[in-house]
């Protein structure tokens, strides 16, 4: 654990803060491995990653991280139950084909799950659809409807409802603004569902 301590995006920092030192983590959709690298360097976390893009995988492995090319929808089923302390899904849920199955597998593989996602209930998104009558394109959701990888958007309320249906207990929740900073509103409340641009939840099996 030597070398320079890396700095990471604010929303990743908030996820990292939810992880206990020296724990084991599976980061699903780990991108270039920034979060795993940070968790290893600062908390001695035993991390693994799955990433769809080969470029991301190769960059991660070049940095000494344990990452495989794989897909959250199809490859989580291979992992045994309770294999990790945390399974993390950061800004990826909305791009999966079957979000409920993905969450189900995460809850099975990890003792805790950490999920971050863009909130489709955010007021600007609602306004965009209400006033222009077009699918919203914002700084954090920059894709047009026809080329977006995001096929399963949800609101915070949708997510909290699903978690309850799946018997997952919300241990912590953070409502975040567009810059990924916490907003100091109750993350499961009605206000967060309107004001927050994204959210992070720490879940465990109830």
């Amino acid at each position: 654990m030597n070398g320079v301590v890396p700095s990471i995006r604010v929303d990743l920092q908030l996820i990292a803060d939810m992880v206990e030192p020296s724990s084991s983590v599976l980061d699903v959709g780990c991108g270039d491995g920034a979060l795993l690298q940070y968790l290893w360097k600062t908390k001695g976390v035993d991390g693994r990653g799955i990433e769809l893009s080969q470029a991301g995988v190769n960059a991660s492995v070049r940095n000494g991280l344990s990452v495989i090319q794989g897909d959250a929808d199809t490859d989580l089923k291979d992992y045994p139950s309770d294999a990790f302390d945390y399974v993390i899904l950061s800004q990826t849920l909305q791009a999966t084909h079957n979000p409920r199955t993905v969450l189900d597998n995460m809850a099975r593989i990890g003792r805790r799950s950490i999920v971050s996602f863009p909130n489709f209930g955010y007021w600007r998104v609602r306004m965009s659809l209400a006033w222009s009558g077009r699918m919203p394109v914002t700084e954090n959701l920059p894709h047009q409807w026809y080329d977006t990888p995001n096929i399963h958007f949800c609101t915070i309320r949708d997510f909290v409802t699903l978690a309850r249906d799946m018997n997952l207990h919300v241990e912590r929740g953070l409502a975040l603004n567009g810059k990924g900073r916490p907003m100091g509103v109750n993350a499961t409340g009605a206000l967060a569902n309107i004001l927050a641009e994204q959210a992070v939840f720490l879940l465990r099996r109830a």
Partner: protein
Amino acid sequence: MSATENISLPGQCIELGGNGKLRLDCGVELGPFPFAYQTYGELNADKSNAIMVCHALTGDQFVAETHPITGKSGWWGQMTGPGKPLDTDRYFIICANVLGGCLGTVGPKETDPATGKPYGLNFPVITIADMVRAQKLLIDHLGIEQLFAVIGGSMGAMQVLDWAARYPERVFAAIPVAGAARHSAQNIAFHEVGRQAIMADRDWHGGDYLSHDTTPRRGLAVARMAAHITYLSETALHRKFGRNLQDREALTFGFDADFQVESYLRHQGITFVERFDANSYLYITRAMDYFDLAAEFGSLPAAFENTPVRYCLVSFTSDWLFPTPESRAVVHALNAVAANVSFVEIESDKGHDAFLLDEPEFREVLGGFLNGCAEHKGLNRL
């Protein structure tokens, strides 16, 4: 006579199986027998920096030096040396000639102590596991408790997987490159073509050609030509040769090597005969055919149950001999036991041979993975 005889080889050769013979999968007990290996770099004080390189079917222990027979540079010279991924300033690199080989380690061309004549087909059929057992005896001999890494491509990757499955506590990191946990039907089929070519050569003499002072050159050359095609990709062959003619302006309407690709393959065949023993080719291809980790351990995940080893699998996009799904099957098995595994597929159009060639991304991934492992193991720089 075989060209590989009566040459003083660089490197070292020890006697294994002297006290306690090596029990082979076929039931035969072998020993004492010569085992040749080469090393690069220095073993550190606590013997924690050793990397075992496992060579492929027709490779040998001369990883990073001019080959004593062919005069060509080492087969993984671009990977091995100061500042390279297999950094000889940092790691102690060991590569042994496999059991059944023909460059110093006991194989069918060596003398059978029981008869005083070359083994020929009296040499026992060996397996990938037998090769690994012999390498483990070498590690014991060198007093190395745990290898920092075991790495190899193709048949070398089979040995790496076998090492990790058989001696998990003796391996910190395993890097199977362009390999598989079993030899596919298609691969067995190609090997059978090669073996039949050798055995159809009348100079083979039922495997006893050394007594007849000859060697099945044509058969072995044809075996090599057929195999060589499987190491390349269609794209690579086309780029290199296309339909270009060899030293001529027009087709000759005969069966001389009109095309460059024919001339190239013939050259590959002829030069191979100079450095390889035909019976060794039979035995080693057989060992690959027999390899099936899942069959031995009951299932592939069972082979890696509770494994403490850190894995990095590498495949190449255009490799159709050991295609990516073979590596992916191993990754899935390792995931099923929550092993620490990395897996990269390198974009290359050079086919199976890509693992031997200078592929910058492969080099960087390998260097990065080893660096990460060194950090996790607390392996200090020398």
